[in-house]
């Protein structure tokens, strides 16, 4: 625990060391080390089935690891933003009621947070009637109301277009600057990440590589690729794998 090279021990919010998780005899996570420190932005990338979700679930304590251990800073407040909720039209739920989970917050605070995420005047609406973008913002608002030390976002940008993703990243970045929380972003996009990520961790059962993203240049072809107005919030991540696998999997995007 004390000899981890990344982050000072007293600054680390969550430290996982040598994590191993298997389901029905299949090894999903193998000797995974993970650390996130105060105020840090970490992007976790990996192809489908690479164990990203399992790692998050292990960090949250839902999945039990068969080896290794996880340490959370005592009293750590986690704001979790899921990809979707397990409710459909069968559960009536207004935005206001949802924001009161797990505990009711003062009205002025709700108003301030909703304004901050750009979701004003939605409180009376049903969750099921929100658009994809509104829904994401409401999920984010609920997580922020708990004044988190760390914000975890699981594929939060899925279903948004490039401009929507850029806008969402800008929002996350602004929120981080304001409240100083650490951010753990999970993404299946292996190559385009949030440019302010301090670290990108590429996972595929084990940690394949780790590094910082390259800021997207202002070259026209990049501007075209990422859409006008992304404002430099997107960046490329170059994978540098120092090892080969004896099993086939690819790190190239599937076009």
């Amino acid at each position: 625990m004390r000899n981890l090279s990344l982050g000072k021990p007293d600054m680390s919010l969550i430290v996982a060391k040598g994590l191993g998780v298997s389901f029905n005899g299949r090894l999903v996570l193998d000797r995974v080390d993970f650390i996130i420190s105060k105020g840090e932005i970490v992007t976790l990338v990996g192809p489908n089935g690479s164990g990203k979700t399992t790692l998050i679930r292990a960090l949250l304590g839902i999945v039990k690891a068969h080896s290794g251990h996880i340490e959370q800073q005592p009293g750590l407040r986690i704001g979790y933003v899921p990809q979707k909720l397990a409710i459909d039209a069968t559960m009536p739920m207004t935005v206001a009621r949802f924001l009161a989970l797990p505990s009711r917050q003062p009205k002025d605070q709700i108003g301030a947070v909703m304004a901050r995420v750009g979701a004003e005047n939605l409180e009376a609406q049903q969750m099921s009637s929100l658009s994809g973008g509104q829904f994401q913002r409401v999920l984010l608002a609920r997580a922020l109301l708990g004044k988190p030390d760390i914000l975890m976002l699981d594929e939060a940008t899925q279903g948004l277009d490039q401009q929507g993703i850029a806008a969402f990243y800008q929002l996350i970045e602004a929120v981080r600057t304001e409240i100083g929380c650490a951010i753990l972003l999970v993404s299946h996009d292996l190559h385009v990440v949030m440019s302010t990520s301090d670290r990108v961790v590429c996972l595929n059962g084990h940690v394949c590589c780790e590094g910082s993203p390259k800021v997207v240049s202002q070259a026209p072809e990049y501007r075209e690729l990422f859409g006008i107005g992304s404002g430099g919030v997107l960046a490329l991540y170059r994978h540098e794998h120092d090892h080969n696998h004896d099993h086939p999997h690819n790190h190239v995007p599937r076009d």
Partner: protein
Amino acid sequence: MFDDFLIRAALAAIGLSLATGPLGAFVIWRKMAYFGDTIAHAAILGVAVSLAFSISIFVGTLLVSFGVGLLAANFTDTRRSMDSILGVLSYSALALGLVAISFVKGANIDLNALLFGDILTVTKANLVQVWAVSLLILALLAWRWTSLLTATLSEEIAASVGINSARERLVLTLALAIVVAVSLKVVGAMLIGAMLIIPAAAARGFSRSPEKMAGIAIVIGAFSGVGGVIASAVIDAPTGPSIVVVAAMVFVASQFVARDQK
């Protein structure tokens, strides 16, 4: 004009709705209808066990239903094909129970009553039991409400705020087993599922929050109970099924009314 036994029957149905309303809402939200049926069917095996070991039928059905519920919940955890596993468990427990009951010596058991309830023979002691247990369930659900609701919405959000979803699932399984044990006398093993699902489904159209849906489900359940008891007396029909028919009619009506409100 109404006899005591009819009033007791109606009161039993009202008492039961206090538990089946909110519990039924969770059954719908979590898509546990088949799971609820499995626990209900296991009650027949519970009756056989109670007779064989000469223990109270309430305790026997509660234990067996809870046990089968735990078994079923365990299978749903590992993401195996839930549907078929529940089907196997559900009908095996029912059939095994029916076979076992036939072997219990000297038992004078009215199978019809076990399967479809015998609400007209509810005694004052039964009535006290139904109300006490239903109020207990209602209190349990109220106490765990936020945790249950959060765990239903997202296991991850629940974990992030320190709520253990597995424990909340256990609370629901236990509550279901208790409700099944207490309602065997009222609507029977085959129709408990209906009393869980139909009032809550009917309440959906009138509700803007989970709490309202649970509350309105209680009202609809109680109305169906009283309506079913009266209707069965008037048209001389079996009472348990009559209650379910009234509930189904309320559901159909709710579909039209709820549509008008939009």
